């Protein structure tokens, strides 16, 4: 792929990839690094891209693998306290970009952070990105029934977290 074409490709696709990674890892700096890594991998593996899926889905799949690898390593490091390359400090405050999206968004963002990874991913895909059940199932490579089930459970869990935090008012129903 030519350099200029790749830069154009980055400019058009990177925001969506960044947002997906950001909601998955909840850390701006880390999300930027993973976005960079995703595009680097895409550049390297462009020959293997079979055009069976849209370029956006292909990129998001690379990003997803990176995120899951990150959590896998994190789990392993908990057991094996070995030195690792880079440690990202948790974002304790809700990023200003999230706050700008509207009233009470910090509460929702913090509740989303507390969801387990598979539920959080379903909410990101179905509710934030607005994918259909079929599209989400294709991306996650699972059945549509599983996506429906996970969405239902994830939303119930999210509501429970909000209620436990004392936010059971009308705006979160």
């Amino acid at each position, binding site marked *: 792929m030519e*350099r200029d074409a*790749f*830069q154009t490709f*980055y*400019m058009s696709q*990177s*925001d969506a990839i*960044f*947002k997906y990674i*950001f*909601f998955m890892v909840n850390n*701006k700096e880390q999300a*930027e690094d993973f*976005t*960079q890594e995703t*595009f*680097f991998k895409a*550049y*390297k593996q462009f020959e293997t891209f079979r055009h069976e899926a849209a370029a956006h889905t292909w990129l998001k799949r690379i990003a997803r693998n990176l995120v899951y690898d990150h959590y896998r390593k994190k789990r392993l490091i908990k057991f094996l306290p070995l030195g690792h390359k880079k440690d990202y400090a948790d974002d304790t405050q809700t990023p200003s*970009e*999230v706050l*700008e*999206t*509207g009233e*009470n*968004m910090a509460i*929702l*963002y913090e509740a*989303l952070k507390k969801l387990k990874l598979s539920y959080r991913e379903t*909410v990101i895909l179905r*509710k*934030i*990105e*607005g994918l259909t059940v079929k599209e989400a199932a294709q991306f996650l*490579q699972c059945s549509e029934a599983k996506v429906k089930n996970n969405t239902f459970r994830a*939303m119930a869990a*999210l*509501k429970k977290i*909000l209620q436990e935090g004392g936010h059971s008012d*009308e*705006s*979160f*129903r």
Partner: protein
Amino acid sequence: MSHLDEKLQRLSTMKRSQKAKMQTLEKLTEQIDSSPKQSKGKTHWQYPFVLASAFVVCIILLLTIFNGTDQTAAPRGTQPLEDFTTEIKLERIYYFDGFLSIDKESFKARSSSLYLDVSKNENPQQLETLSQNLGQLKEEHITRFESLYNFSDIILQAEGHREWRLKIYSNGNDELIFQDMLTNRYFVMEDGTNEFYDEFYAMIRDGRQSGLKFYFIPFLLVLSLFSHFLKKIMIKKCQLPEIPKLQRKTGDRIIKLFTNIICCITFSFFFVYYHPVNLLILLSIFTLVLFNELFFDWKFSKENHNILEQRKYKLFLSIQIVIYFLMNITLIVIVY
């Protein structure tokens, strides 16, 4: 749409910092520039790996040809047969049970049960009878070797790490002649009794029902049947795609065939020339054949199937490998 859904949708309008976006692009450009340029053809490390394995097998083959197949040198602790008395308490006896393969030049018993054709006996009653008979041997000068038939090669082990290595011949009248492999002297029974012959023959008969061969053939049968049924079940239940033979790459097929031929030649070679065959060598050859098969299946699946099918294939291959190793361990534990 609920309020919660609306709020979640609003999160998608989040703006990414343009400064951070450009910084990431800059870092990405640097990373691309500093990374080594990819060569046109993708390197497959697997080919040299498979060839190296085949090469190792060839080396074993050649070493065996040049170094010979016999291990006649007596290890430390081996005693001359004239020191054997009826007082000696035998702990075990290893004997080679492959009459057609015994010859005068080589000694084929090994002090381990991990050899096909080598059996072990630890029955105290039988050992006591053998010990009583062996203690009464007298030396004999043998002049006519033509009339002697090879009967068995044995290793006797007694307390205190003492060991005797004997070659037994028969003169055709159930009378046995013993050759001490350490001193190369010959012995016969003092009173010409056939008791040793009867006891030893009974021991061989018992050993055939519990020797390595007894487990090895069922092991092979169970392994191949299991592999066949597992594939059938996986294809049916998990929609595992079958790999059509003709769809494989020619290069892959050649390497796979080459490795299998090498393994086949080694396998036949060991059976024909290298007696007794060590179980571990056999299992190594089997492992090489199996991994050769699985590796190219996996490679095909990786190149031609989607991630979901690959995952199923990975599971199928992993199950096969785990079961194969479990069976190997079980076999070794049973035998050893």
